């Protein structure tokens, strides 16, 4: 083939690709123009301060609180430009692992650590920093039930679906809860997380709390063996976004996602029966109600809290705290210096006070006062070589 010919052909191909790309790009731009409320804070990055006493802190862990923690790190950096905090959302288990091995300055986890996990990391403490809810999402639009229609569920029905015992949408158990709806005779596809996740922990913690069968055969964990996978139609998807996308894509499916991933998406969101017997949809208010129902100041030495199936008329039952993991005696960590330890303690102090005002915009409920007091006690007990880092 002559060289000239080759050149001409390559030019032709490049032109072709540009045309295809431009057409496709233009199409998708117009197709998505009404769907642009993506979270801004996710893409913001911290700018490195160039001060002579620059401090750089590294954290890693749960993806669930990541939008809020990343918002905090940005806001805190504008207040104190010499302090840079980087948070790496690698998953709760990854956060636990890294803080146990002391490769990060702080970790984050949605699931409270088990006693065995705490034994692996002497001196590790948990500090609840925000709370969120898990929404039940479904897609029955192809069967004539709009996404704005609220379907009612109980814990027993959800357990039945994920155990593969309730396999049709028009099952009497679901139909009885929703007498005004004409539920279709369609197979239920139960979507769950394929990766380990704090969201799965919260969901299975709830099912274990309300259904003794679930508790004894499946239990609560960041990843469980879903009975529905063996006996009926279960599907595993990666990440909250994966579950939301699979539900949106699969007619007749149901799934559980963090509330922020259900809001604004083309999904139906169900109401769940709470301990008081009311059907409640997840919202900032109903999640805050669940947290507020646990009164009294908890023990700052062990802040592992369970707020699933909480009391209160308007409490959403599938709510969970999410935790910052850090060492009480910070000089235990090889990479920690006194100035870093102080900066981290002060950042967390700011996060549980001023930082809470950024929570509602990202659909996290602000911490109730009793938890803030417990967190304050915990933060004042932090030390570096025996010296308190925060004094009141």
């Amino acid at each position, binding site marked *: 083939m002559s060289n000239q010919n080759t050149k001409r052909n390559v030019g032709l191909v490049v032109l072709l690709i540009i045309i295809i790309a431009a057409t496709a790009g233009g199409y998708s731009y117009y197709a998505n123009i009404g769907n642009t409320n993506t979270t801004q804070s996710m893409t913001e990055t911290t700018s490195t301060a160039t001060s002579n006493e620059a401090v750089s802190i590294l954290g890693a862990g749960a993806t669930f609180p990541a939008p809020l923690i990343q918002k905090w790190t940005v806001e805190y950096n504008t207040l104190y430009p010499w302090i840079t905090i980087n948070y790496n959302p690698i998953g709760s*288990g990854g956060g636990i692992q890294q803080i146990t091995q002391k490769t990060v300055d702080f970790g984050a986890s949605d699931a409270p650590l088990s006693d065995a996990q705490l034994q692996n990391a002497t001196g590790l403490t948990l500090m609840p920093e925000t709370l969120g809810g898990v929404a039940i999402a479904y897609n029955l639009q192809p069967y004539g039930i709009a996404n704005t229609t609220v379907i009612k569920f109980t814990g027993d029905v959800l357990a039945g679906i994920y155990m593969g015992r309730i396999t049709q949408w028009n099952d009497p158990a679901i139909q009885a809860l929703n007498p005004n709806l004409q539920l279709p005779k369609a197979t239920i596809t139960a979507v769950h997380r394929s990766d380990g996740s704090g969201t799965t922990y919260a969901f299975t913690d709830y099912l274990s709390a309300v259904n003794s069968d679930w508790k004894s055969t499946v239990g609560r964990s960041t990843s469980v*063996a879903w009975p529905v996978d063996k006996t009926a139609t279960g599907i595993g998807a990666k990440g909250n976004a*994966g579950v939301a996308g699979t539900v949106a894509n699969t007619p007749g499916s149901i799934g559980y996602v963090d509330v922020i991933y259900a809001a604004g998406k083309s999904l139906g969101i169900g109401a769940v029966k709470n301990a008081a017997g009311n059907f409640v949809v997840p919202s900032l208010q109903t999640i805050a109600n669940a947290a507020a129902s646990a009164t009294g100041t908890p023990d700052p030495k062990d802040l592992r809290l369970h707020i699933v199936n909480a009391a209160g008329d308007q409490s959403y039952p599938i709510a969970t705290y999410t935790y910052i993991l850090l060492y009480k005696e910070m000089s235990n960590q090889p990479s920690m210096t006194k100035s870093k330890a102080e900066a981290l303690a002060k950042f967390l102090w700011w996060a549980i006070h001023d930082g809470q005002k950024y929570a509602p915009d990202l659909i996290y409920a602000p911490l109730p006062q009793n938890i803030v007091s417990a967190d304050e006690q915990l933060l004042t007990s932090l030390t570096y070589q025996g010296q308190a880092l925060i004094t009141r």
Partner: protein
Amino acid sequence: MQRHTLPRRAGKKSRRPDLFWALLSVAAVVILIITAINLYALINGSAASLRYFGLGFLVGTDWVPNPPEGPPLLGALPAIYGSVVTTLIALLLAVPISLGVALFQAELSPRRLRTPSIFLIELLAAVPSVVYGLWGLFVLVPFMRDHVNTQLKTWLGFLPLFSGPTNGLGMLTAGVILAIMIIPYGSSVMREVIAVVPRSQREGSLALGATRWEMIRTSVIPYARTGIIAAIVLALGRAIGETMAVTMVIGNVARISPSLFLPAETIPSVIANEFTEVAGNDLYLSALFELGLILFAIAFLMNLAGRILITRLRFTGGSDRIA
């Protein structure tokens, strides 16, 4: 003077090791060392699991890493099954297409179309796997569910292979996406080996009155077959280790079912999904290492089989230039 020194240098090079020789040797040894370290790490990491589960790990069908009571119950068979089945589907679809593409580009294509078609096929190889996954989840899955799977079920639904509910997420979709991903690998190697088939071979068969198809069938393909098998082995290696795109469309369920419509899992997808959540559960982590070891072994055996096949064919006639 130049004329005088040149032959002497050339003579030395072939006898005594010099810097160039040393550099190349280091490069070759480094590869061996990396492979050895890799294998050592896999075996070392799997030790606890190998000891606890033994051979039962290979045939176990349960995957319960965090049971409510007692130690984890882990078996690799669903993941092995999913890996083998999706790879087979991918090869069944990709090998004929790759061969067709390669033959078209090497034998039939008008010059004007040759370069663009090579360019476009090779572009497919440059697309990152996660992009294939995204496209798979949002475009291919609904398409398979609404068109391909329903048709298969209507016409071939009596076979267990095409029974059961069709969500679009499952082994068949994973196989299709893998096929698309390995076509460029298979076809470019095949095209190269077909292009080096000597002209005399073609001219000989044409001179005997063969049509173009007969010429390709009797002269080109037999001559290039060792290279074609090498291309298939390369594509297979790529398919069995593919992670991200498969994870996004296979449905991630530890289940062995005859139906290709149903969700399953593969060895790489299990590792990718679960490695972040193994803290404080050493047996679980060790089991994931053992899965990696199994994948290593499968890939090794497949390569070995390919090598043996190539040597066998070479003895019965074929090209020495290739592979």
